[in-house]
């Protein structure tokens, strides 16, 4: 991740100058809203990100009063229904065949044009219609005008606007995403926040002229809101921390040993840990953990023009690479083309008048047969389906263009990658960079199971690009000048870990003959590790079927009825930053993010600061996402998968229509048994580094300092010099454990 630090970005909204009081008021009202990413690239983050400026307990209480309301005033329900109706239609560019007219004018102007014709808003007739026509074209002016009409006193206006946002939190969060993270989106001009508030206020005035009462209602809610007990959570956290410390305390630094057969770098994702453990147990393999985009932020452009940002949300878009699907055989190529034509014809026939009647008569028997095959023979059906619609990631063969990087840039990325992982010497003959992605079908939130560091996409492309850089002799020569000498016989290979089945695909193209045997041996050992990992996972879930563990995992990931396939990051609990030997002998049960770090090569703590400022923040986002979806599933989760309704291609609703349901589905958190369900605990970061380096990293970074001082996350440190554990308290002092 370090390689990209110069590009580090902050939300776009916070960069804008606040020129006048209304602008400041609008921005302040949005300050508590966390962004919610669309289905195309679902990045997990804490829904209470906006409350992190307050101590955890106070924030929970306040968030409860804003978000966890059992009932809304009845007129506000009608206002929400109308707001949902307008927003859904305005932002839909993929589902509907007859899009809302006037979309190009922007949200507020389109509303001003259409609302005077909307009889469902104008119950009392022409007077309201005339009023709508008098509203200013500038949404900020309109906000001021309507606030005055609603007789909201000036000191309460910001709170009133905030209530307008928090009473429809799903949509509000999605708009926050569009404003902060999708500037290229034509539907998200900078004024979107004001436009949304103006629309909401206008609807409010039309349907509930006495909405000023909302302030009193909120104050009553604040009085009624009970303080949440954190007893269970704290006891879970203490139990987990004590057990982790006990395990780590037993670890001994490795003695001098022979160089490993191969070194593998995995993503820090918790799902990598079991596979790494089982692979290491098979022989002399050394594994590392780092951010799954391997420090190279990319923007991937597909043949059809689709552009996928493939980098962590903390970073700006990186180098553009073009991705083209390749096919192993002529038959594969033709099947893919046939699939494309069939989908085109199907859409054309089914999305018009009269065509569907004829189409149903033609394809019904095929639909019945295909449904039956998908149900009883999911693996076969999936194999055929991906032939007709190949995925844009491994194991499908893909062709990637080379990013336009200078030698200096390539060397920079390479050096940072090695230093951050602590791999600067003793290179094995084979070094594998292993990205990851998941596989599930019929799951609208499937991108949340892919690599978050790659922006909710598969990470194999990043591995391939970095391997190309690291196999470049010119880059190696430059690295040698930085005292990173890569032996001539060391070869870097890209791979991708399928976290649903634990299969690892290795890119064997361009591998020199000298390494063929090593690759074969590695593939064999990876297959054994896959078997052990799948068996361990199924033992946790008490699954017991006649199928082998791997076959069962494959069948689940290909089954269209399944809602429990990839466990995702359920039960995530800690981030461990340190050398692998610390945890190598422990089964962390897939609960820990593992970032490799060697304190001996980080004299001033700069590398540690980089790791913590990225990995710790991202791990806390993910942990917060799971934590709050478990604490209050209806408020922060997205409900049951069986009643989810995909809306406009980018969000899900519940049932017929609802607010956008952000967060995890119930099936992602409650997974049948207690041992598999998520445990509500805050992230515990364990760092193996000198205390003063840790403290420096925390105090010099506003986000990290806030997270620690307000107890949104816990941090313990094992000082290598003292061999003792310390916990960092809220007042940023150390307490021995």
């Amino acid at each position: 991740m370090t390689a990209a630090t110069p590009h580090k970005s902050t939300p776009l909204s916070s960069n804008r100058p606040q020129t006048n009081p209304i602008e400041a008021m609008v921005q302040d009202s949005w300050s508590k809203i966390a962004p919610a990413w669309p289905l195309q690239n679902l990045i997990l983050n804490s829904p209470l990100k906006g409350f992190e400026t307050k101590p955890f307990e106070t924030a929970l209480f306040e968030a409860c009063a804003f978000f966890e309301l059992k009932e809304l005033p009845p007129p506000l329900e009608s206002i929400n229904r109308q707001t949902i109706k307008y927003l859904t239609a305005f932002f839909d560019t993929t589902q509907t065949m007859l899009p809302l007219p006037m979309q190009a004018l922007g949200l507020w102007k389109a509303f001003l044009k259409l609302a005077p014709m909307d009889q469902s808003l104008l119950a009392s007739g022409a007077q309201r219609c005339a009023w709508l026509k008098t509203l200013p074209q500038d949404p900020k002016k309109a906000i001021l005008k309507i606030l005055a009409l609603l007789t909201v006193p000036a000191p309460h206006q910001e709170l009133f606007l905030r209530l307008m946002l928090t009473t429809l939190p799903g949509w509000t969060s999605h708009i926050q995403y569009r404003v902060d993270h999708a500037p290229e989106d034509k539907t998200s001009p900078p004024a979107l926040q004001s436009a949304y508030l103006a629309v909401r206020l206008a609807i409010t005035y039309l349907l509930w002229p006495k909405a000023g009462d909302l302030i009193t209602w909120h104050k009553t809610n604040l009085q009624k809101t009970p303080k949440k007990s954190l007893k269970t959570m704290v006891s879970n956290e203490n139990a987990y921390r004590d057990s982790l410390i006990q395990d780590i305390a037993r670890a001994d630094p490795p003695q001098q040993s022979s160089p490993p057969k191969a070194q593998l770098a995995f993503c820090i994702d918790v799902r990598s840990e079991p596979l790494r453990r089982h692979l290491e147990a098979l022989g002399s393999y050394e594994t590392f953990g780092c951010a799954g985009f391997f420090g190279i932020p990319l923007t991937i452009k597909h043949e059809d023009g689709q552009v996928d940002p493939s980098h962590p949300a903390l970073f700006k878009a990186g180098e553009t690479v073009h991705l083209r699907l390749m096919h192993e055989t002529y038959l594969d190529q033709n099947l893919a083309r046939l699939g494309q034509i069939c989908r085109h014809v199907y859409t054309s026939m089914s999305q018009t008048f009269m065509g569907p009647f004829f189409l149903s008569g033609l394809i019904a028997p095929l639909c019945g047969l295909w449904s039956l095959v998908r149900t009883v023979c999911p693996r076969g059906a999936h194999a055929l389906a991906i032939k007709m619609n190949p995925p844009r990631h491994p194991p499908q063969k893909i062709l990637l263009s080379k990013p336009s990087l200078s030698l200096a840039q390539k060397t920079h990325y390479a050096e940072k990658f090695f230093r951050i992982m602590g791999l600067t010497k003793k290179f094995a003959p084979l070094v594998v960079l292993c990205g990851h992605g998941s596989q599930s079908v019929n799951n609208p939130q499937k991108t949340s199971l892919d690599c978050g560091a790659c922006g909710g996409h598969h990470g194999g492309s990043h591995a391939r690009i970095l391997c190309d850089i690291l196999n470049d002799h010119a880059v190696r020569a430059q690295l040698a000048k930085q005292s990173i000498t890569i032996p001539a016989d060391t070869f870097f290979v890209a791979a991708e870990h399928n976290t649903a089945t634990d299969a690892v695909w290795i890119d064997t193209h361009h591998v020199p003959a000298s390494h063929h045997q090593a690759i074969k041996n590695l593939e064999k050992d990876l297959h054994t590790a896959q078997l052990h990992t799948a068996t361990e996972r199924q033992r946790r879930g008490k699954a017991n079927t006649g199928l082998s563990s791997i076959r069962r995992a494959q069948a689940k990931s290909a089954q269209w009825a399944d809602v429990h396939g990839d466990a995702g990051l359920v039960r995530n609990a800690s981030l461990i930053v340190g050398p692998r030997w610390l945890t190598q002998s422990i089964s962390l049960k897939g609960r820990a993010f593992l970032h490799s770090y060697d304190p001996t090569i980080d004299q001033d703590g700069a590398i540690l600061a980089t790791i913590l400022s990225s990995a710790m923040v991202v791990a806390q986002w993910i942990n917060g996402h799971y934590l709050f979806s478990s604490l209050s599933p209806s408020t922060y989760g997205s409900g049951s998968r069986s009643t989810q309704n995909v809306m406009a291609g980018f969000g899900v609703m519940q049932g017929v229509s609802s607010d956008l349901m952000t967060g995890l589905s119930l099936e992602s958190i409650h997974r049948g048994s207690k041992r598999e369900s998520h445990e509500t605990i805050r992230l515990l970061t364990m760092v193996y580094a000198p205390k003063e380096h840790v403290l420096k990293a925390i105090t010099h970074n506003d986000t990290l300092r806030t997270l620690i001082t307000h107890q949104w996350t816990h941090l313990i440190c094992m000082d290598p010099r003292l061999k003792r554990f310390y916990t960092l308290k809220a007042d940023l002092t150390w307490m021995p454990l």
Partner: protein
Amino acid sequence: MDGLFWMVLGLASIIGLVTLLFGIQHLAGKAARVRFVVGGAGALATLALLSAADSLLIFALTWIALNLCTYILMNHAPRWRAARTSASLLGRYLAASSLFLAVGFLILNHVDDGSLKDVVQNASLDPPVVVALLCIFMAAGIQMALWPAHRWLMATLNAPTPSMVIMQISILGAGVILLVRFAPLYVEAVYILWCLFTVGVLTSTLATLWSLIQNDVRCMLAYAAMAQMGFVTVLCGLGLFPAAMFHLCAFGLWQMYRLLSANASRRHASSPDALPKFGHILSGLFFGGVAAYIFSSLAGYAWWADDTTRFLSIVTIVGSTQLAIAVTNALTFWGKFPLAWIISATSGAVYGLFLKLATRVMPELYSDYPSPLCLWHMLGVIVMLTPWLLMFFRRALQNNALPDWVLKAYVFMWNAGQPSASVITPHRNQYNLKNP
């Protein structure tokens, strides 16, 4: 146990097998699973029984049992307000349809008590029988979600996916079976047949429009189902009962697939067929004409007949034309025109063969009763065809200088296609299910 029964049994078996297996896995570990298995199996079994029932009493009792089973499926989450009100809304509609059916059957029972076949063969069109037929039409219309009695269909969208499949297919299917069982009597009552045709045309056109406006997959599919029911009603109104039964089965299988795979619909690219080249439209129409000729020959209808079977030829022309245009748009090489011709001709042949098979399977009592074409029929066809042609110009909606009347019409239809307020979840905390 006639051909109609075997058709319905085949449909219910495939849907039951796939959906129950799907649901058992999909709802694993959830409280709703037992309810789903009991209600789902019950609904499909009663649907098959309904098609076999030859006694008015047994038919009515099976009808009520089917409705009860679907109500059980719908009442899956009493803690979720929208699901609760959906169950209540559905219950009211189903109660109304059962009431209309009971009234109709009570009247018919005076004509000839006992066998349903005897009633439809022996009853003369006296005023009480006409009233009974109207009651039965009302019962079927509610059950088939025909406009304006379609609100319940949107309410089913608050059910788990597999339950929704079974509910939609069994409730809608029951309505079609009811209409077909009384086919010989409806053929006698020409004015009711015209009513059926008119309601069918309105339903299919409005529902297709609403399905194309929708922004989410479930609502789009619900309106697509309603449109199919409108089309089936049009076929009944034209006296083409085997075609109606065939389309019920085709709709059932297609809808099952679409609903069960609805969660995969993340990126639904809009059709690129807006305003194709004029040459493509002309060639498409020519290919469509050829396909319709092949269809008529294989289905056993006269080419461009003077009776209502011509309607099926028109459907084939439209469908094959659309298919040919889509194929020519999707392909780039020189041979696309011959290929489009072959594909559209094959589609006409396949459609014709399927309809022929359905006509063979259906008992003679429920076979085709084509009537001479009249102006009213042609008007209906124009109403259905015009929006199909207009769809090629739909990109014009993105013009920012649209006249007010177009905007008014859009907003009016947009609002008319919204689900009932009571079945929406306006605040996420009302979805207060804590466990799956």
